[in-house]
């Protein structure tokens, strides 16, 4: 088995996160959601041939709009892509916030030539503020343009979701038979997941 570690520490050229398994591309761009020009919008795309998916979500009874959206679309157990942003949680933002998530999924679906119900959305950052949608939607175009199956692309995606984290976090394992599992995660505070 091959063990993945923090990308910054092992720049081998071999993807060690979400782009390690075949059939996936990723990107991370600076869309201008965060002040300061750092990466803040990530995209992970499943090029198939299959598009099965699963998810677990917070058990907090106050759920952010992207959680409500992603729970709904995952009832079909299929995802073509996941859009993730830092710089704003889009939580407690009312119907307008939910519409922002819907619009994000619609735009990603349009760019990827699929249906919005195959787009998962995740957000992280400050609770209670609307996302800067013009910047986010423009950034989605750049994110699609930047998609690649490389180590760099996976690391950019893992970096774009960071908030108070100090480094991207990725891991992967390859089974001796040749199939792989890869992943990325963010989280530094408000960190006691209870999932279902």
């Amino acid at each position, binding site marked *: 088995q091959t063990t993945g570690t923090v990308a910054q520490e092992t720049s081998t050229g071999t993807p060690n996160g979400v782009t390690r398994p075949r059939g996936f591309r990723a990107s991370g761009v600076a869309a201008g959601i965060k002040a300061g020009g750092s990466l803040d919008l990530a995209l992970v795309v499943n090029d198939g041939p*299959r598009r099965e*998916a*699963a998810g677990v979500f917070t058990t907090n009874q106050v759920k952010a709009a992207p959680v409500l959206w992603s729970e709904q679309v995952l009832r079909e157990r299929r995802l073509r892509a996941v859009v*993730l942003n830092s710089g704003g949680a889009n939580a407690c933002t009312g119907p307008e916030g939910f519409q922002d998530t819907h619009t994000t999924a619609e735009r990603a679906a349009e760019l990827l030539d699929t249906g919005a119900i195959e787009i998962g959305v995740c957000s*992280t950052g400050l609770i209670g503020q609307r996302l800067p949608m013009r910047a986010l939607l423009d950034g989605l175009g750049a994110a699609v343009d930047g998609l690649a199956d490389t180590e760099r692309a996976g690391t950019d995606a893992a970096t774009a979701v960071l908030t108070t984290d100090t480094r991207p*976090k990725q891991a992967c394992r390859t089974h001796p038979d040749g199939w792989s599992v*890869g*992943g990325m*995660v963010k989280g*530094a505070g408000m960190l006691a997941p209870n999932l279902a």
Partner: protein
Amino acid sequence: TMLAVVTTDAVVDGEGLQRSLLEASRGTFERLDVDGGTSTNDTVLLLSSGASGLTPAEEEFTELLTEVCADLVRQLQHDAEGATKAIDITVRGAVSESDAVGIARLTAEDNLVCTALFGSDPNWGRIVMAVGRSGATVDASSLEVTVNGVTLYSRGAPVAERDTVDLSGRDVEILVDLHLGEHSATVLTTDLSHGYVEENSAYSS
């Protein structure tokens, strides 16, 4: 907030993915408790492309998925806000798994335990206090607390001096043995430092 995306090129159908993810999450993401804050946004998504053309047995897939999730969780623990200690709290001898998890989580969330560890103080009294207020089945006369390999409290009384425990390193292992049953659980946490307070008074999410 914790966000995770996990991908695989194994051929696994959606229901199988969901079962494997639930199983993997239960032993990994849900066993991390830095500050008790279950976010409005916590999400883990698992996507399968099937591009390998290989269909593993569900147990085999769950095992590898769990390894990746455990690796990610360990990285979360080490990069948590203000963390100077990576603390593993293991509870064993509980009458049920939910008791073991509940005690470990409550101890992980206890401010007095976590601040003591920031000060490299193996304050077993605070650990015993946290265990006792957990609501789980506990018997003070059989309780045992071990920190970094040194048993400090056993069956109702201290059995070693605190200064015999070396907490100079980053990694801390706390073992609470209830001696009541067969169930155990480990929860990962960190200390509660000045850095955590500063981070969360400057960044208001």
